[in-house]
């Protein structure tokens, strides 16, 4: 075990428990495991639009989780990265006629730039102050984009973001076909998950955890904590920007709510519900969140009430989240 320093290393003897062995094996090959699961996912979910949503928001929550779960820093401004990713991609396609692939890249890069600026302004705010500052900064972006209605469509959002037919030479499909759309998005998400896992497993990933565990100690050891936080914020922004870019293509519109702090709150909730600081947690959380929303909205218009209560219950009694609790139980 000692050559893969997992953050949850401990010397409890878990002998013979097949479940524990399976969980550990899954954790070791986490990229393959999650990709395999997501690959067959559409077969489990009743309709593809929901599956695509879970894919996209799972990516969003995963990107957010780098800063929140792994580094231990609570940001309430990640909607800015998702939203700018969406808007940049949408604007590139609608106003400039740029094809879908460069448009997605533009979306990701734009989100990264916003993260650099926001991070630069917020990073000296420590602790929970940071949550407040990031919320306010992100809401500033919301107002800016809202005002630039010639570009963004203002309150009505940006419409007409359609890629329609995708022609890759060796294969052709239409994004109107839900299954094709899912696997199209899946390719991007799969690449993102691979990079994400790689980053977490790198020396930089170790520094994130050190900061979460004890920021002062990390500083005394010689880590430039401020710079590391900024980098993590930007990298996280890139992943969330990709989620936003994909969302623009998925919906064919970019609603102004993509930038509102309610969306930032969703990332927080999905992460906590799923399990902060775990690899699968964000996807589990996105799945739980969106499935619950889907079911409950068919029965009542007051989904936020149930969401709020469920979230409060998790905060009070199940802070490890679903997957985090599973891992914890399995390690005993």
């Amino acid at each position: 075990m000692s050559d893969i320093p997992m953050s949850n290393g401990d010397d409890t003897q878990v002998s013979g428990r097949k479940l524990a062995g399976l969980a550990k094996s899954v954790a070791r090959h986490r990229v393959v495991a999650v990709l395999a699961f997501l690959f067959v996912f559409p077969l489990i979910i009743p309709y593809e639009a929901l599956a695509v949503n879970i894919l996209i928001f799972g990516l969003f929550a995963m990107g957010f989780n780098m800063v929140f779960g792994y580094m231990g820093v609570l940001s309430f401004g990640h909607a800015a990265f998702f939203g700018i990713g969406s808007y940049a991609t949408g604007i590139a396609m609608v106003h400039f006629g740029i094809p879908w692939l460069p448009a997605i890249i533009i979306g990701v890069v734009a989100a990264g730039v916003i993260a650099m600026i926001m991070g630069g302004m917020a990073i000296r705010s420590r602790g929970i102050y940071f949550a407040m500052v990031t919320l306010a900064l992100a809401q500033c972006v919301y107002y800016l984009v809202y005002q630039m209605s010639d570009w963004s469509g203002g309150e009505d959002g940006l419409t007409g973001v359609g890629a329609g037919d995708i022609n890759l030479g060796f294969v052709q499909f239409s994004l109107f076909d839900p299954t094709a759309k899912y696997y199209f998005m899946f390719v991007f998400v799969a690449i993102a998950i691979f990079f994400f896992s790689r980053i977490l497993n790198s020396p930089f990933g170790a520094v994130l955890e050190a900061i979460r565990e004890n920021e002062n100690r990390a500083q005394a050891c010689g880590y430039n904590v401020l710079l590391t936080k900024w980098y993590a914020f930007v990298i996280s922004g890139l992943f969330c920007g990709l989620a936003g870019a994909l969302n623009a293509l998925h919906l064919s519109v970019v609603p102004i709510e993509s930038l509102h702090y309610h969306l930032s709150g969703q990332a927080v909730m999905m992460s906590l519900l799923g399990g902060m600081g775990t690899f699968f947690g964000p996807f589990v959380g996105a799945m739980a969140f969106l499935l619950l929303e889907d079911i409950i909205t068919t029965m009542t218009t007051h989904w936020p009430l149930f969401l709020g209560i469920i979230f409060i219950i998790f905060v009070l009694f199940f802070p490890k989240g679903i997957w985090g609790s599973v891992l914890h139980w399995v390690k005993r």
Partner: protein
Amino acid sequence: MQTNEIMRAENVTMRFGGFTALNDVSVSFPVGQLTAIIGPNGAGKSTLFNVLSGAFPPSEGRIIFEGTDITGTPQHAFAHKGIAKSFQITNVFPELSALENVRIAIQAMESQFDIWTPRNKLKEMVERANELLELVGLNKHRERLASNLAHGEQRALEIALALACNPRLLLLDEPTAGMSPEETVVMMDLITHLASERTVILVEHKMKLVMGISNHLIVLHHGEFLAEGTPDEIRTNDEVRRVYLGQGDH
């Protein structure tokens, strides 16, 4: 300036709001020796420690290290200069294993922003971490989470973390705080061993402990410099005795 000094505080004053914790303190620390900063509670020992170790810059005055003015250097640069510290209240990485604790401390010297190399390829760091764990007597606990270690073991881990950057100057803030007598003896032996290889500055309020192992003592009182010298000199110093007798001996 003495050429055999490793660090010097020059006219250091530290104010917190209206309260002056250190008042115009000038002291010099000889290289290669074990110097202890002692004094009754409230003397300003911890504040001086924090200023010397880079926790915050002094309100006035300078800190000179190996001839260079390092006043105002940010905390994270200290380890890279060869100055390491351990904290008075145990400050490790709780939910990481002891091995990972030390490995990460070692990594700080070599690789902070590498986002690509898988950690399990960093074999030299793990080897070095194992060596340090063995030095402080924690090798059988290397897989244990730091939060699951006994108090004395956590203090030992603190030391290992400080040693990770291969410091020329080691600053220890009450390393035996909260330890049992047996643990204290082990720790003192370790510190004596470490002092043979590098300069150590120690903050302690247990007089008996430091008298035995220090080469040099600096006594503070009410935030001001009171006396300095060898243990014998300090033991027979009238002012020091008056200050300490009033407080009771430890």
